């Protein structure tokens, strides 16, 4: 199972907020967490918020220490995410056609004499 590093930046917290202060990390480097697990507690001028993890994966790097002020869009955490050769995702309708390794047939040909 291949792994890929994905960096997650501080999301836009709405109401025109441009930055947030890291109150307390809910994870440590090396932790394997699930999607939506609590990731980090941050405080903006408006309120304190717990940001859920957008990804399941292993925490590789925390880009801010507690009490750091992080602008929106700046790197916050890097995950190592398993990238299994995910089956391609079908479109809005229908199914992804399966590719049989060896297509089957019943008709046999006789090569021409010429």
């Amino acid at each position: 199972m291949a792994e890929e590093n994905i960096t997650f930046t501080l999301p836009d917290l709405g109401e025109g907020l441009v930055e947030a202060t890291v109150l307390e990390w809910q994870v440590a480097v090396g932790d394997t967490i699930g999607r939506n697990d609590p990731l980090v507690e941050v405080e903006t001028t408006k309120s304190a918020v717990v940001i859920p993890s957008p990804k399941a994966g292993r925490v590789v790097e925390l880009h801010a220490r507690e009490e750091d002020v992080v602008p929106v869009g700046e790197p916050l955490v890097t995950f190592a995410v398993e990238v299994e050769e995910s089956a391609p995702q079908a479109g809005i309708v229908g199914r992804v056609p399966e590719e049989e390794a060896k297509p089957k047939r019943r008709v046999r040909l006789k090569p021409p004499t010429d």
Partner: protein
Amino acid sequence: MTELIERADTTVESAVVELSMQQAINRALRVLLTEDPDVLVFGEDVGALGGVFRVTDGLQKEFGDQRVFDTPLAESAIMGMAVGLAMNGWRPVPELQFDGFAYPAVDQIVNQVARMNYRTRGAAPMPITLRLPSFGGIQAPEHHGESLEALFAHTPGLKVVAPSDPAEAYSLLLQSVRSDDPVVYMEPKARYWDRRPVRLSEPTDPIGTSRIVRPGRHATLVAWGAMVHRCVQVAELAAEDGVELEVLDLRWLKPIDAAGLAASVARTKRAVVVHEAPLTAGLGAEVAALITENCFRELAAPVQRVTGFDVPYPAGPLEPQYLPTIDRVLLAVQRTLEY
């Protein structure tokens, strides 16, 4: 890398890279949007959603919602608007979400887009490329698996092309959008997920050129879109019986490469045309007529056509029995060998 979608550099890559057809088209759109500020990509759900097959994924984020934008749900207005945009100096690349939903826009396509340059004696060219996810093969609901190539190919003033693999999709889209003539670019949705190593390159053959996908000497299989892959499967199986079939990817459905067809059939003496659309008045009839007219003396057998039946495109479970099967193509080949 911080972004899931790598950034396309404007210089054309020459390295071999593994891509699906979705990604290849996405790459070509990035190159076009980057090189020409007049290019606009619009249609239903092409912006934030990134397209119902993710073909325009990430474009709005990178090029902004002035160049890549969603429109309300009205196919005729989408194409009518494209005419106005073109007359105002833009190079529109509209998407109609599904083949079956193009019909309300056929009036604008046939009566306006196709003949505007003619009617204005060249004053108002229509450098429009209509991206149209087409054909069947994904067991989609009604109206989502139609093949409209005969209608568009029959329309004077329109060029029509159908790529069959990711590399083709890339270079043919560059060619289509850069052309100042209106092009209907039919994307074989069954091949969207076809992922293979490809060398992305600038288009080399002129518009209207077909290509030999697999050489052979006993008969020529002529196809386009997803049926090219089907014919390659047939040829590989036929080889086990000692029969070498040439597979010709027509690519351009208008203008059709009559010379290319003639060159191949003159050698193989036999031809089978394969397409998903129903038989009667399908584009296969045009191809068969061209071959018969140009290779009458060389032909050892009448041109065969293996196509969808003359029935409305069926529901999912019956689709495999409607679309040309490997056995039906083999039987047609056998008919030409025994004739």
